[in-house]
């Protein structure tokens, strides 16, 4: 790792004649660059671009008329650290009743009940989307809370299922095959509705909080209970984490 004052290395890779893939050293840096690209597009200081697609550690720019100049400039941009307080967090009520709860509890060395409590104690961000319209890859659970995908994917995962894979949480917008470990069910939440504006409840950068509810949909306890072990949030460089 470089020191906090150093500019993190940014690699700009060609994607055909009109695209760039910007690779960053961390997921956090990729999210920050994505936010900066959106800011520059809003303020009209980014050349016209058809798609800005964040990935786990990359941002893809597609449909640039002349990518060369941007490719040269981009590594020298001053990208402000990611804001953790902008906008309001989307609150998603979750029944922690998933079929893989026991397996995840065993992996984490917790009781099934504690899995839900730990999972709901953190604030998440949508790092990127994919797999299906409206499916967001939510980050924040850190080292120690990673789970492998299921050895054999399910042929059908119901809409609203809350799953874990690697360091990500995701909510299936509709029933589909899927290999994530299912720990719960999102209640009264429509992730994707093309008739709605915006169609996607979650888009890259959206902050998300999960609220545990019981089988009747009633909130359970306080998700910020200090007795609950805090998920291991990795330290962020240059003190970018803002006070609560």
């Amino acid at each position, binding site marked *: 790792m470089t020191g906090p004052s150093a500019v993190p290395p940014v690699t700009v*890779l*060609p*994607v*055909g*004649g*009109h*695209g760039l*893939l910007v690779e960053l050293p961390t997921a956090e840096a990729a999210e920050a660059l994505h936010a900066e690209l959106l800011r520059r597009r809003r303020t009209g200081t980014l050349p016209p671009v*058809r*798609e*800005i*697609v*964040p*990935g*786990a*550690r*990359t*941002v*893809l720019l*597609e*449909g640039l008329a002349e990518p060369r100049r941007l490719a040269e400039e981009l590594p020298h941009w001053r990208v402000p650290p990611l804001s953790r307080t902008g906008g309001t967090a989307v609150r998603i009520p979750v029944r922690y009743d998933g079929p893989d709860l026991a397996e995840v509890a065993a992996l984490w060395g917790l009781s099934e009940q504690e899995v839900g409590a730990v999972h709901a104690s953190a604030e998440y961000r949508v790092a*990127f*989307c*994919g*797999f*299906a*319209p*409206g*499916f967001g*890859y939510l980050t924040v659970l850190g080292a120690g809370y990673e789970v492998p995908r299921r050895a054999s994917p399910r042929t059908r995962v119901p809409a609203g299922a809350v799953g874990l894979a690697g360091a990500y949480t995701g909510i299936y917008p*509709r029933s589909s095959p899927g290999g994530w470990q299912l720990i719960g069910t999102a209640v009264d939440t429509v992730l*994707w509705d*093309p008739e709605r504006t915006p*169609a*996607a409840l979650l*888009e*890259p950068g959206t902050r998300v909080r999960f609220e545990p509810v019981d089988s009747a949909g009633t909130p359970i306890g306080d998700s910020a209970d200090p007795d609950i072990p805090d998920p291991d949030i990795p330290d962020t460089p240059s003190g970018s984490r803002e006070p609560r």
Partner: protein
Amino acid sequence: MTPAGVPADAPVGALEVVRAGALSTVQDLGRPGHAHLGVPRSGALDQPAHGLANRLLGNPEGAATLETTLTGCAVRSHLPTVAVVTGAPCPVTLDGRPAPWGEPLRLPAGSVLEAGAATYGLRTYVGFAGGVDTAPVLGSRATDLLSGLGPAPLRDGDRLSFGTRRRRDPLATSPIPSPCPAPPRELVLPVVPGPRADWFTPAGWRTLRTGDYRVSPAGNRVGLRLEGPTLERAYDGELPSEGMALGAVQVPPAGLPVVFLADHPVTGGYPVIGVVPEEALPAAAQAVPGTPVRFVPAD
């Protein structure tokens, strides 16, 4: 996701699908600008052929046409209209009588227009004055076979509607000469190396440029699949999910390249060895299984 474009309680549409063929879908310019939400671009695979149909009919460029696959389709129009058949050349009949390909045709009410099996190429487009009207999803009527957005693929007996025609008679506009390209003996795909060319050995890259590939019958609107020599990787494993561009030549673990077409997934973890420029993709969309394929470095 979205069911058929025509709601069950809507008036019965004037366009009746008599023979849906192997795979016929509604297509237009697609849904660019939503990839960050997990939405593929979709839209007609052979945009020049789709656009030609609209121009010949005096339609706006956003009007939707029918895209058929190999075996064409037949439709009955319950209203008088004007239609045109473009894309992969095929025998065209109007009420059983031969009619020209690539020229606007006057369809009397109740007549049946049939686009037969493609003489060469794969995807024929059938356009109508005013376009095919279905409920737009994110601004597009395109059927996206990967994510299920837009109207379902056509089935025999489906009823669709026409959009509003422009006032001028399309037949009154000056005819555009119909291009009738010769059937290509081989598909030549220019490829720009990257973004993950370094995930392959120099031998792997050489194989891509010199290998004898053929179009696989397993291809679809998501991607052109190829048969031929496998590409040697420098690294195993997968990349953390990253954005995938239209035309990306992605190489899954089996080592055979796939060229991403309009319904491609927007993120993925298999390395992309190179990208085929968009201009070359319509030809890729018309290459029938078995067509020899050659990758050449793009200038």
